[in-house]
């Protein structure tokens, strides 16, 4: 396994399975913890912890007030930030964010924008004067492959958990008054779910790669779908070429995965909602 990792893997792939016992199309056990009691970020407005096998990602959402931009006076902001601290894997050093973290942040920003999961107009409090800014910090605690899937899932779960206090603008003073007693949940319009694949030897596609598999793979594909079966993002950053048919196969599997993930999220949300 250490001397000839690729040969070791090929032997398993020939039997259509993987060293950790999974099938080629099988996902790792996914667990999600949402909210202040289970997830333990008490200072955040919304939080979620997602474990995809060993890959652990935590997402905290903080809502702050700001003036909206001049050209879009009725829109708030959503600012995602993915961090890969040096504690999650050996290859990440401390210091400014590396390329992988920045590319992941851009990917999450694109997913939020493309899927329209939150309408920025919903974040506006007073046209041209006050709007919400949602800072979504996604931090990887343990990197074992498939960062993008876990990040998107954590983000979705955390946003579903966010409760925004009611803000009114006092007519006389012109100042904003925050009513912490009255909170409303965020309106999530779409639920995007990411599914990642690793390409081996230009032909074989395996789902939910671990860090070892990602290193040996010749390419990766990430497909983000929403509940209507629409594609929010097809992210294939280089790597081995794929035919259109193989891509279609990935999309079909992504749509199936979306249903499973949606069921899981709904179940967890229902279990934490106070009756």
């Amino acid at each position: 396994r250490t001397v000839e990792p690729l040969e070791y893997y090929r032997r398993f792939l020939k039997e259509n399975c993987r060293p950790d016992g999974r099938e080629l199309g099988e996902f790792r056990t996914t667990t999600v913890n949402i909210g202040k009691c289970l997830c333990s970020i008490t200072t955040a407005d919304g939080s979620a912890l997602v474990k995809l096998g060993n890959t652990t990602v935590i997402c905290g959402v903080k809502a702050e007030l700001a003036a909206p931009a001049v050209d879009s006076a009725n829109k708030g902001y959503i600012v995602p930030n993915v961090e890969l601290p040096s504690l999650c894997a050996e290859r990440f050093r401390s210091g400014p964010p590396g390329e992988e973290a920045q590319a992941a942040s851009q990917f999450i920003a694109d997913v939020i924008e493309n899927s329209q999961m939150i309408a920025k107009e919903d974040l506006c409090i007073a046209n041209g004067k006050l709007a919400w800014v949602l800072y979504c910090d996604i931090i990887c605690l343990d990197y074992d492959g498939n960062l993008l899937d876990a990040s998107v899932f954590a983000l979705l779960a955390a946003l579903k958990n966010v409760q925004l206090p009611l803000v009114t603008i006092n007519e006389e003073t012109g100042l904003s008054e925050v009513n912490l007693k009255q909170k409303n949940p965020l309106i999530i319009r779409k639920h995007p779910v990411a599914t990642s694949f690793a390409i081996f030897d230009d032909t074989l596609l395996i789902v939910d790669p671990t860090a070892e598999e990602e290193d040996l793979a010749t390419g990766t594909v990430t497909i983000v779908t929403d509940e209507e079966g629409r594609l929010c993002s097809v992210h294939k950053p280089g790597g081995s070429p794929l035919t259109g048919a193989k891509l279609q196969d990935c999309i079909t599997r992504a749509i199936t995965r979306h249903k499973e993930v949606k069921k899981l999220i709904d179940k967890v949300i229902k279990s934490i909602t106070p009756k």
Partner: protein
Amino acid sequence: GVLERSREQLLRQTCEAVVLGVLHPRTAISLVLQVLSDAGSLLSCCLNAACMALLDAGLPLATLFCGVTCALQPDGTILLDPTARQEQDARAILTFAIASSERKVLMATTKGSCSVEEMQQCLAAAQRAANTIFQFYRDSVRRRYSK
């Protein structure tokens, strides 16, 4: 910023898949792209420039590649190689890097959401358009070496 980093990652991994690095061990291949003007379809322009530069450098490549941008307009029509204005009005923008061997997809990135059928249609259109671009490569290289 993060956008440039993300573009760099896309370009780098596309080139890495194509350049036969095994033939040049312990070598660094540095590709510098300077945007002189952006009038739409920037990413596919970068991809085309990168491929032609690699060709011009004489590096061993497994396959040629070209970048094609498709814009999906609100009424459902597919527009290839959109201008900046058309990109703004479009519902979705899909950029593909198509390899010259069997027109396979090397790189794909999308902005905005679209249905699966629309994506397949755009991919088919991009693969057809790739023929034109590869012909342009051939003509340029012929012109370069014919003097």
